[in-house]
Protein backbone atom coordinates (compact mmCIF):
# COMPACT_ATOMS: atom_id res chain seq x y z
CA UNK A 1 0.00 0.00 0.00
CA UNK A 2 2.55 2.50 -1.07
CA UNK A 3 0.33 4.96 -2.86
CA UNK A 4 -2.95 6.11 -1.41
CA UNK A 5 -5.92 4.84 -3.39
CA UNK A 6 -9.47 3.66 -2.99
CA UNK A 7 -8.34 0.02 -2.81
CA UNK A 8 -8.38 -1.98 0.38
CA UNK A 9 -7.85 -5.62 1.31
CA UNK A 10 -11.53 -6.20 0.75
CA UNK A 11 -11.68 -4.72 -2.75
CA UNK A 12 -8.44 -6.39 -3.83
CA UNK A 13 -9.71 -9.80 -2.69
CA UNK A 14 -13.07 -9.15 -4.34
CA UNK A 15 -11.34 -7.95 -7.51
CA UNK A 16 -9.15 -11.03 -7.75
CA UNK A 17 -12.12 -13.26 -7.09
CA UNK A 18 -14.00 -11.47 -9.84
CA UNK A 19 -11.14 -11.94 -12.30
CA UNK A 20 -11.08 -15.67 -11.52
CA UNK A 21 -14.84 -15.89 -11.97
CA UNK A 22 -14.64 -13.84 -15.16
CA UNK A 23 -12.15 -16.30 -16.67
CA UNK A 24 -14.50 -19.10 -15.76
CA UNK A 25 -17.48 -17.20 -17.11
CA UNK A 26 -15.84 -16.53 -20.46
CA UNK A 27 -14.99 -20.20 -20.79
CA UNK A 28 -18.51 -21.26 -19.85
CA UNK A 29 -20.26 -18.68 -22.00
CA UNK A 30 -18.18 -18.99 -25.14
CA UNK A 31 -17.08 -22.65 -25.15
CA UNK A 32 -18.87 -24.82 -22.62
CA UNK A 33 -22.39 -23.60 -23.40
CA UNK A 34 -23.65 -25.12 -26.65
CA UNK A 35 -25.46 -23.10 -29.29
CA UNK A 36 -29.21 -22.87 -28.83
CA UNK A 37 -31.34 -24.80 -31.34
CA UNK A 38 -33.46 -21.72 -32.13
CA UNK A 39 -31.34 -18.77 -31.13
CA UNK A 40 -28.08 -20.39 -32.14
CA UNK A 41 -24.92 -18.59 -31.00
CA UNK A 42 -26.71 -15.41 -29.96
CA UNK A 43 -27.85 -17.21 -26.82
CA UNK A 44 -24.40 -16.24 -25.55
CA UNK A 45 -25.53 -12.61 -25.41
CA UNK A 46 -27.93 -13.71 -22.69
CA UNK A 47 -24.98 -14.33 -20.42
CA UNK A 48 -24.21 -10.64 -20.30
CA UNK A 49 -27.81 -9.47 -20.70
CA UNK A 50 -29.48 -11.27 -17.81
CA UNK A 51 -26.73 -10.53 -15.23
CA UNK A 52 -26.83 -6.85 -16.24
CA UNK A 53 -30.55 -6.83 -15.50
CA UNK A 54 -29.88 -8.33 -12.09
CA UNK A 55 -27.18 -5.80 -11.21
CA UNK A 56 -29.03 -2.77 -12.63
CA UNK A 57 -32.23 -3.55 -10.74
CA UNK A 58 -30.35 -4.26 -7.53
CA UNK A 59 -28.44 -1.00 -7.88
CA UNK A 60 -31.57 1.10 -8.46
CA UNK A 61 -33.25 -0.61 -5.57
CA UNK A 62 -30.23 0.29 -3.46
CA UNK A 63 -30.63 3.91 -4.60
CA UNK A 64 -34.20 3.76 -3.36
CA UNK A 65 -33.12 2.28 0.01
CA UNK A 66 -30.31 4.81 0.32
CA UNK A 67 -32.70 7.69 -0.41
CA UNK A 68 -35.21 6.50 2.18
CA UNK A 69 -32.51 6.02 4.81
CA UNK A 70 -31.00 9.41 4.00
CA UNK A 71 -34.34 11.12 4.58
CA UNK A 72 -34.94 9.08 7.74
CA UNK A 73 -31.48 9.43 9.28
CA UNK A 74 -30.00 12.41 7.43
CA UNK A 75 -26.81 10.40 7.10
CA UNK A 76 -24.40 11.40 4.37
CA UNK A 77 -23.28 7.77 4.16
CA UNK A 78 -26.63 6.65 2.74
CA UNK A 79 -26.85 9.66 0.49
CA UNK A 80 -23.54 8.73 -1.10
CA UNK A 81 -24.56 5.07 -1.31
CA UNK A 82 -27.69 6.13 -3.21
CA UNK A 83 -25.68 8.34 -5.56
CA UNK A 84 -23.02 5.70 -6.21
CA UNK A 85 -25.55 2.93 -6.75
CA UNK A 86 -27.42 5.06 -9.31
CA UNK A 87 -24.26 5.53 -11.35
CA UNK A 88 -23.44 1.81 -11.25
CA UNK A 89 -27.05 1.10 -12.19
CA UNK A 90 -26.88 3.39 -15.23
CA UNK A 91 -23.62 1.73 -16.30
CA UNK A 92 -25.12 -1.77 -16.19
CA UNK A 93 -28.34 -0.50 -17.73
CA UNK A 94 -26.29 0.65 -20.74
CA UNK A 95 -24.91 -2.87 -21.16
CA UNK A 96 -28.35 -4.31 -20.58
CA UNK A 97 -29.92 -2.15 -23.31
CA UNK A 98 -27.37 -2.70 -26.06
CA UNK A 99 -26.90 -6.41 -25.39
CA UNK A 100 -30.68 -6.73 -25.47
CA UNK A 101 -30.87 -4.85 -28.75
CA UNK A 102 -28.23 -7.03 -30.36
CA UNK A 103 -29.96 -10.15 -29.13
CA UNK A 104 -33.31 -8.85 -30.35
CA UNK A 105 -31.93 -8.19 -33.81
CA UNK A 106 -30.69 -11.76 -34.14
CA UNK A 107 -33.72 -13.41 -32.58
CA UNK A 108 -36.69 -11.25 -33.59
CA UNK A 109 -35.06 -9.46 -36.49
CA UNK A 110 -35.55 -6.03 -34.88
CA UNK A 111 -33.36 -3.92 -32.60
CA UNK A 112 -36.22 -2.43 -30.69
CA UNK A 113 -39.64 -3.87 -29.97
CA UNK A 114 -42.23 -1.22 -29.19
CA UNK A 115 -44.70 -3.80 -28.00
CA UNK A 116 -42.59 -4.96 -25.09
CA UNK A 117 -43.44 -3.29 -21.76
CA UNK A 118 -40.26 -4.63 -20.21
CA UNK A 119 -38.17 -2.92 -22.83
CA UNK A 120 -39.97 0.41 -22.61
CA UNK A 121 -39.96 0.55 -18.83
CA UNK A 122 -36.25 -0.23 -18.86
CA UNK A 123 -35.67 2.66 -21.26
CA UNK A 124 -37.67 4.96 -18.98
CA UNK A 125 -35.70 3.72 -15.98
CA UNK A 126 -32.51 4.58 -17.84
CA UNK A 127 -33.67 8.14 -18.47
CA UNK A 128 -34.98 8.59 -14.93
CA UNK A 129 -31.64 7.69 -13.40
CA UNK A 130 -29.69 9.73 -15.93
CA UNK A 131 -31.87 12.60 -14.73
CA UNK A 132 -31.04 11.64 -11.15
CA UNK A 133 -27.31 11.77 -11.92
CA UNK A 134 -27.83 15.13 -13.64
CA UNK A 135 -29.54 16.46 -10.54
CA UNK A 136 -26.55 15.49 -8.42
CA UNK A 137 -24.38 17.81 -10.49
CA UNK A 138 -26.66 20.81 -10.16
CA UNK A 139 -25.45 24.10 -8.74
CA UNK A 140 -27.23 23.86 -5.42
CA UNK A 141 -26.00 23.51 -1.87
CA UNK A 142 -24.87 20.02 -0.90
CA UNK A 143 -27.85 19.62 1.40
CA UNK A 144 -30.36 20.71 -1.24
CA UNK A 145 -28.88 18.24 -3.72
CA UNK A 146 -29.09 15.41 -1.21
CA UNK A 147 -32.68 16.20 -0.26
CA UNK A 148 -33.96 16.68 -3.79
CA UNK A 149 -32.18 13.66 -5.22
CA UNK A 150 -33.49 11.54 -2.35
CA UNK A 151 -37.00 12.53 -3.42
CA UNK A 152 -36.24 11.69 -7.06
CA UNK A 153 -34.56 8.44 -5.96
CA UNK A 154 -37.71 7.37 -4.16
CA UNK A 155 -40.14 8.49 -6.88
CA UNK A 156 -37.89 6.93 -9.54
CA UNK A 157 -38.76 3.38 -8.56
CA UNK A 158 -42.44 4.28 -8.60
CA UNK A 159 -42.15 5.80 -12.07
CA UNK A 160 -40.58 2.64 -13.43
CA UNK A 161 -43.32 0.45 -11.97
CA UNK A 162 -46.12 2.72 -13.19
CA UNK A 163 -44.63 2.89 -16.70
CA UNK A 164 -44.26 -0.87 -16.79
CA UNK A 165 -47.92 -1.51 -16.08
CA UNK A 166 -49.13 1.39 -18.19
CA UNK A 167 -47.30 0.07 -21.23
CA UNK A 168 -48.44 -3.47 -20.53
CA UNK A 169 -52.11 -2.49 -20.40
CA UNK A 170 -51.73 -0.06 -23.27
CA UNK A 171 -50.38 -2.71 -25.57
CA UNK A 172 -52.91 -5.31 -24.44
CA UNK A 173 -55.61 -3.38 -26.26
CA UNK A 174 -53.87 -3.93 -29.56
CA UNK A 175 -54.43 -7.08 -31.48
CA UNK A 176 -51.94 -9.83 -30.85
CA UNK A 177 -48.96 -10.03 -33.08
CA UNK A 178 -48.14 -13.33 -34.63
CA UNK A 179 -45.29 -13.80 -32.20
CA UNK A 180 -45.73 -12.31 -28.76
CA UNK A 181 -42.21 -11.30 -27.84
CA UNK A 182 -42.88 -11.56 -24.15
CA UNK A 183 -44.04 -15.11 -24.49
CA UNK A 184 -41.13 -15.80 -26.76
CA UNK A 185 -38.69 -14.36 -24.28
CA UNK A 186 -39.99 -16.26 -21.29
CA UNK A 187 -40.72 -19.30 -23.42
CA UNK A 188 -37.21 -19.57 -24.64
CA UNK A 189 -35.66 -19.04 -21.24
CA UNK A 190 -37.75 -21.89 -19.95
CA UNK A 191 -36.82 -23.79 -23.05
CA UNK A 192 -33.16 -23.13 -22.45
CA UNK A 193 -33.21 -24.74 -19.08
CA UNK A 194 -35.30 -27.65 -20.24
CA UNK A 195 -33.10 -28.45 -23.15
CA UNK A 196 -29.79 -28.25 -21.41
CA UNK A 197 -28.81 -27.40 -17.88
CA UNK A 198 -25.48 -26.10 -19.18
CA UNK A 199 -27.39 -22.91 -20.06
CA UNK A 200 -28.69 -22.61 -16.53
CA UNK A 201 -25.31 -23.26 -14.94
CA UNK A 202 -23.64 -20.66 -17.16
CA UNK A 203 -26.35 -18.11 -16.42
CA UNK A 204 -26.06 -18.53 -12.65
CA UNK A 205 -22.27 -18.30 -12.86
CA UNK A 206 -22.51 -15.15 -14.96
CA UNK A 207 -24.91 -13.53 -12.51
CA UNK A 208 -22.51 -14.21 -9.65
CA UNK A 209 -19.65 -12.76 -11.69
CA UNK A 210 -21.55 -9.59 -12.58
CA UNK A 211 -22.73 -9.12 -9.02
CA UNK A 212 -19.13 -9.28 -7.87
CA UNK A 213 -18.18 -6.70 -10.48
CA UNK A 214 -21.10 -4.51 -9.48
CA UNK A 215 -20.17 -4.66 -5.81
CA UNK A 216 -16.51 -3.98 -6.55
CA UNK A 217 -17.41 -0.95 -8.67
CA UNK A 218 -19.92 0.23 -6.08
CA UNK A 219 -17.38 0.15 -3.25
CA UNK A 220 -14.87 2.08 -5.32
CA UNK A 221 -17.47 4.55 -6.53
CA UNK A 222 -18.63 5.11 -2.99
CA UNK A 223 -15.08 5.74 -1.81
CA UNK A 224 -14.49 8.22 -4.61
CA UNK A 225 -17.68 10.02 -3.60
CA UNK A 226 -16.62 9.93 0.03
CA UNK A 227 -13.19 11.35 -0.80
CA UNK A 228 -14.79 14.05 -2.93
CA UNK A 229 -16.92 14.99 0.02
CA UNK A 230 -13.90 15.12 2.33
CA UNK A 231 -11.97 17.12 -0.21
CA UNK A 232 -14.82 19.59 -0.59
CA UNK A 233 -14.74 20.11 3.16
CA UNK A 234 -10.98 20.59 3.13
CA UNK A 235 -11.33 23.05 0.26
CA UNK A 236 -13.91 25.01 2.20
CA UNK A 237 -11.62 25.12 5.24
CA UNK A 238 -8.82 26.38 3.01
CA UNK A 239 -11.11 28.93 1.42
CA UNK A 240 -12.13 30.18 4.86
CA UNK A 241 -8.48 30.53 5.81
CA UNK A 242 -7.76 32.44 2.59
CA UNK A 243 -10.71 34.72 3.16
CA UNK A 244 -9.48 35.50 6.66
CA UNK A 245 -6.07 36.35 5.27
CA UNK A 246 -7.74 38.61 2.75
CA UNK A 247 -9.32 40.40 5.66
CA UNK A 248 -5.98 40.65 7.47
CA UNK A 249 -4.26 41.96 4.33
CA UNK A 250 -6.91 44.63 3.91
CA UNK A 251 -6.51 45.80 7.47
CA UNK A 252 -2.74 45.82 6.99
CA UNK A 253 -2.97 47.95 3.86
CA UNK A 254 -5.20 50.41 5.62
CA UNK A 255 -2.66 51.20 8.29
Amino acid sequence: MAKPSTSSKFTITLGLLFLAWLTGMLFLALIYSPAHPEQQESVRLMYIHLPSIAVAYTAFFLTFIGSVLYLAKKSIFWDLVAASAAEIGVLFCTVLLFSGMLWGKKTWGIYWDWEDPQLLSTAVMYVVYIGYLGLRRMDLTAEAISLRSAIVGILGIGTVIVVHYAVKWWRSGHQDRTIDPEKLATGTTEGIFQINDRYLFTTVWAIATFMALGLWLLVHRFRVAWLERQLAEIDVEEAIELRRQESAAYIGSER
Partner: protein
Amino acid sequence: MFRDAWLIAKKDIRIELSSKVIFAQVLPFSLLFVVLAGMVVTTDFVTKGAESRNVLEQVAPAVFWIIATFAAIMALGRSQAVESSNGNLDALRMAGLDPAGIFLGKAAAVFIQLLALELIVGFAAFTLYGVPLASVGLLAATVLATTLAVASSGMVYAAVAAGTTTRETFVPLLILPVLLPVLLAATRATESALFGVSGGWNWSAALFLFSLLYVGIGMLTFDVLMEES
Protein backbone atom coordinates in the same frame (compact mmCIF):
# COMPACT_ATOMS: atom_id res chain seq x y z
CA MET B 1 -53.36 26.15 3.37
CA PHE B 2 -56.25 26.70 0.96
CA ARG B 3 -56.08 30.43 1.58
CA ASP B 4 -52.42 30.40 0.51
CA ALA B 5 -53.20 28.18 -2.48
CA TRP B 6 -55.96 30.52 -3.61
CA LEU B 7 -53.68 33.54 -3.20
CA ILE B 8 -50.89 31.99 -5.26
CA ALA B 9 -53.20 30.66 -7.96
CA LYS B 10 -54.94 33.99 -8.34
CA LYS B 11 -51.61 35.76 -8.59
CA ASP B 12 -50.27 33.36 -11.26
CA ILE B 13 -53.42 33.66 -13.34
CA ARG B 14 -53.30 37.42 -13.08
CA ILE B 15 -49.69 37.41 -14.27
CA GLU B 16 -50.72 35.30 -17.26
CA LEU B 17 -53.63 37.60 -18.04
CA SER B 18 -51.35 40.61 -18.18
CA SER B 19 -48.29 39.01 -19.80
CA LYS B 20 -50.13 36.54 -22.08
CA VAL B 21 -47.10 34.30 -22.53
CA ILE B 22 -49.17 31.13 -22.73
CA PHE B 23 -51.86 32.59 -24.94
CA ALA B 24 -49.80 34.75 -27.24
CA GLN B 25 -46.86 32.36 -27.61
CA VAL B 26 -47.54 28.78 -26.52
CA LEU B 27 -51.03 28.64 -28.00
CA PRO B 28 -50.06 29.76 -31.53
CA PHE B 29 -47.12 27.36 -31.40
CA SER B 30 -49.45 24.50 -30.47
CA LEU B 31 -51.91 25.39 -33.23
CA LEU B 32 -49.09 25.54 -35.72
CA PHE B 33 -48.04 22.09 -34.58
CA VAL B 34 -51.59 20.82 -35.19
CA VAL B 35 -51.47 22.10 -38.76
CA LEU B 36 -47.95 20.74 -39.35
CA ALA B 37 -48.91 17.29 -38.11
CA GLY B 38 -51.95 17.36 -40.37
CA MET B 39 -49.79 18.19 -43.39
CA VAL B 40 -47.06 15.68 -42.63
CA VAL B 41 -49.10 12.65 -41.62
CA THR B 42 -50.53 10.69 -44.53
CA THR B 43 -54.29 10.19 -44.94
CA ASP B 44 -53.93 6.68 -46.30
CA PHE B 45 -56.35 4.22 -44.85
CA VAL B 46 -55.44 1.59 -42.28
CA THR B 47 -57.55 -1.30 -41.17
CA LYS B 48 -57.77 -1.94 -37.50
CA GLY B 49 -59.97 -4.78 -36.44
CA ALA B 50 -63.25 -4.45 -38.28
CA GLU B 51 -62.90 -0.74 -38.88
CA SER B 52 -61.03 1.24 -41.45
CA ARG B 53 -59.73 4.71 -40.64
CA ASN B 54 -57.27 7.07 -42.20
CA VAL B 55 -53.90 7.38 -40.51
CA LEU B 56 -54.39 10.99 -39.47
CA GLU B 57 -57.64 10.14 -37.72
CA GLN B 58 -56.01 7.16 -36.06
CA VAL B 59 -53.04 9.11 -34.68
CA ALA B 60 -55.05 12.26 -33.78
CA PRO B 61 -55.26 11.43 -30.03
CA ALA B 62 -51.52 10.73 -29.82
CA VAL B 63 -50.62 13.88 -31.76
CA PHE B 64 -52.92 15.98 -29.61
CA TRP B 65 -51.45 14.73 -26.33
CA ILE B 66 -47.88 15.11 -27.54
CA ILE B 67 -48.63 18.75 -28.36
CA ALA B 68 -50.29 19.16 -24.98
CA THR B 69 -47.21 17.71 -23.28
CA PHE B 70 -44.96 20.24 -24.99
CA ALA B 71 -47.29 23.04 -23.99
CA ALA B 72 -47.29 21.73 -20.43
CA ILE B 73 -43.50 21.80 -20.24
CA MET B 74 -43.52 25.41 -21.42
CA ALA B 75 -46.25 26.38 -18.97
CA LEU B 76 -44.36 24.75 -16.10
CA GLY B 77 -41.17 26.52 -17.11
CA ARG B 78 -43.05 29.80 -17.17
CA SER B 79 -44.54 29.10 -13.77
CA GLN B 80 -41.05 28.69 -12.33
CA ALA B 81 -39.53 31.61 -14.23
CA VAL B 82 -42.08 33.98 -12.75
CA GLU B 83 -40.75 33.24 -9.26
CA SER B 84 -37.07 33.35 -10.04
CA SER B 85 -36.74 36.57 -12.05
CA ASN B 86 -36.68 39.04 -9.14
CA GLY B 87 -35.77 36.71 -6.31
CA ASN B 88 -39.43 36.24 -5.51
CA LEU B 89 -38.80 32.70 -4.33
CA ASP B 90 -36.88 34.17 -1.40
CA ALA B 91 -39.76 36.53 -0.72
CA LEU B 92 -42.19 33.59 -0.70
CA ARG B 93 -39.90 31.80 1.76
CA MET B 94 -39.84 34.90 3.95
CA ALA B 95 -43.61 35.17 3.82
CA GLY B 96 -43.95 31.85 5.60
CA LEU B 97 -46.74 30.60 3.35
CA ASP B 98 -47.67 26.96 3.72
CA PRO B 99 -45.51 24.98 1.24
CA ALA B 100 -48.40 22.61 0.51
CA GLY B 101 -50.52 25.66 -0.26
CA ILE B 102 -47.89 27.06 -2.61
CA PHE B 103 -47.79 23.73 -4.43
CA LEU B 104 -51.55 23.55 -4.74
CA GLY B 105 -51.77 27.14 -5.91
CA LYS B 106 -49.07 26.90 -8.52
CA ALA B 107 -50.34 23.54 -9.78
CA ALA B 108 -53.89 24.90 -9.94
CA ALA B 109 -52.77 27.89 -12.00
CA VAL B 110 -50.94 25.63 -14.46
CA PHE B 111 -53.99 23.37 -14.53
CA ILE B 112 -56.33 26.20 -15.47
CA GLN B 113 -54.02 27.63 -18.12
CA LEU B 114 -53.44 24.22 -19.70
CA LEU B 115 -57.10 23.37 -19.65
CA ALA B 116 -57.98 26.55 -21.51
CA LEU B 117 -55.20 25.92 -24.00
CA GLU B 118 -56.24 22.30 -24.55
CA LEU B 119 -59.84 23.27 -25.20
CA ILE B 120 -58.80 25.52 -28.08
CA VAL B 121 -56.10 23.22 -29.47
CA GLY B 122 -58.30 20.15 -29.06
CA PHE B 123 -61.21 21.77 -30.83
CA ALA B 124 -58.94 22.82 -33.68
CA ALA B 125 -57.19 19.46 -33.95
CA PHE B 126 -60.23 17.21 -33.83
CA THR B 127 -62.17 19.42 -36.25
CA LEU B 128 -59.33 19.72 -38.73
CA TYR B 129 -58.50 16.03 -38.57
CA GLY B 130 -62.15 15.14 -39.03
CA VAL B 131 -62.47 12.66 -36.19
CA PRO B 132 -65.80 11.36 -34.89
CA LEU B 133 -66.83 11.93 -31.28
CA ALA B 134 -68.47 8.97 -29.59
CA SER B 135 -68.62 10.19 -26.01
CA VAL B 136 -68.42 13.82 -24.92
CA GLY B 137 -68.51 12.88 -21.25
CA LEU B 138 -65.56 10.56 -21.50
CA LEU B 139 -63.57 13.11 -23.48
CA ALA B 140 -64.24 15.80 -20.88
CA ALA B 141 -63.31 13.46 -18.03
CA THR B 142 -60.13 12.43 -19.81
CA VAL B 143 -59.03 15.97 -20.49
CA LEU B 144 -59.69 17.00 -16.89
CA ALA B 145 -57.92 14.00 -15.36
CA THR B 146 -54.95 14.23 -17.71
CA THR B 147 -54.46 17.93 -17.19
CA LEU B 148 -54.61 17.47 -13.46
CA ALA B 149 -52.06 14.64 -13.67
CA VAL B 150 -49.71 16.71 -15.86
CA ALA B 151 -49.98 19.82 -13.69
CA SER B 152 -49.45 18.02 -10.39
CA SER B 153 -46.62 15.68 -11.37
CA GLY B 154 -44.99 18.34 -13.53
CA MET B 155 -45.00 20.87 -10.71
CA VAL B 156 -43.18 18.44 -8.40
CA TYR B 157 -40.37 17.88 -10.89
CA ALA B 158 -40.22 21.52 -11.91
CA ALA B 159 -39.63 22.35 -8.25
CA VAL B 160 -36.89 19.71 -8.03
CA ALA B 161 -34.89 21.74 -10.55
CA ALA B 162 -35.88 25.16 -9.17
CA GLY B 163 -33.05 27.53 -8.35
CA THR B 164 -30.55 25.94 -10.71
CA THR B 165 -29.04 27.76 -13.66
CA THR B 166 -29.71 25.01 -16.22
CA ARG B 167 -33.34 24.63 -15.16
CA GLU B 168 -34.86 25.19 -18.63
CA THR B 169 -33.06 22.29 -20.24
CA PHE B 170 -33.04 20.04 -17.22
CA VAL B 171 -36.74 20.07 -16.35
CA PRO B 172 -37.90 18.25 -19.53
CA LEU B 173 -35.39 15.47 -18.85
CA LEU B 174 -36.89 14.97 -15.41
CA ILE B 175 -40.52 15.39 -16.41
CA LEU B 176 -40.85 13.43 -19.65
CA PRO B 177 -40.31 9.93 -18.19
CA VAL B 178 -42.94 10.71 -15.57
CA LEU B 179 -45.37 12.02 -18.17
CA LEU B 180 -44.98 8.92 -20.35
CA PRO B 181 -47.61 6.83 -18.51
CA VAL B 182 -49.90 9.89 -18.49
CA LEU B 183 -49.45 10.26 -22.23
CA LEU B 184 -50.23 6.58 -22.82
CA ALA B 185 -53.33 6.57 -20.66
CA ALA B 186 -54.61 9.85 -22.09
CA THR B 187 -54.16 8.65 -25.67
CA ARG B 188 -55.96 5.42 -25.00
CA ALA B 189 -58.83 7.11 -23.18
CA THR B 190 -59.16 9.68 -25.95
CA GLU B 191 -59.19 6.97 -28.64
CA SER B 192 -61.97 5.40 -26.69
CA ALA B 193 -63.91 8.67 -26.39
CA LEU B 194 -63.57 9.44 -30.09
CA PHE B 195 -64.03 6.05 -31.73
CA GLY B 196 -66.24 4.42 -29.14
CA VAL B 197 -63.77 1.69 -28.20
CA SER B 198 -64.40 0.28 -24.72
CA GLY B 199 -62.07 0.71 -21.74
CA GLY B 200 -61.83 4.50 -21.79
CA TRP B 201 -63.30 5.05 -18.35
CA ASN B 202 -60.74 2.74 -16.77
CA TRP B 203 -57.96 4.82 -18.25
CA SER B 204 -59.57 8.04 -17.06
CA ALA B 205 -59.91 6.61 -13.59
CA ALA B 206 -56.26 5.53 -13.62
CA LEU B 207 -55.25 9.04 -14.65
CA PHE B 208 -57.34 10.50 -11.88
CA LEU B 209 -55.70 8.19 -9.32
CA PHE B 210 -52.29 9.10 -10.66
CA SER B 211 -53.02 12.80 -10.27
CA LEU B 212 -54.32 12.31 -6.72
CA LEU B 213 -51.11 10.46 -5.92
CA TYR B 214 -49.00 13.32 -7.24
CA VAL B 215 -51.09 15.97 -5.50
CA GLY B 216 -50.27 14.11 -2.30
CA ILE B 217 -46.59 13.78 -3.15
CA GLY B 218 -46.40 17.45 -4.04
CA MET B 219 -48.04 18.55 -0.80
CA LEU B 220 -45.63 16.41 1.19
CA THR B 221 -42.43 17.25 -0.65
CA PHE B 222 -42.83 20.97 -1.33
CA ASP B 223 -41.78 21.59 2.21
CA VAL B 224 -38.33 20.22 1.39
CA LEU B 225 -38.24 21.50 -2.19
CA MET B 226 -39.00 25.08 -1.13
CA GLU B 227 -36.02 25.12 1.20
CA GLU B 228 -32.85 27.09 0.50
CA SER B 229 -31.23 26.18 -2.77
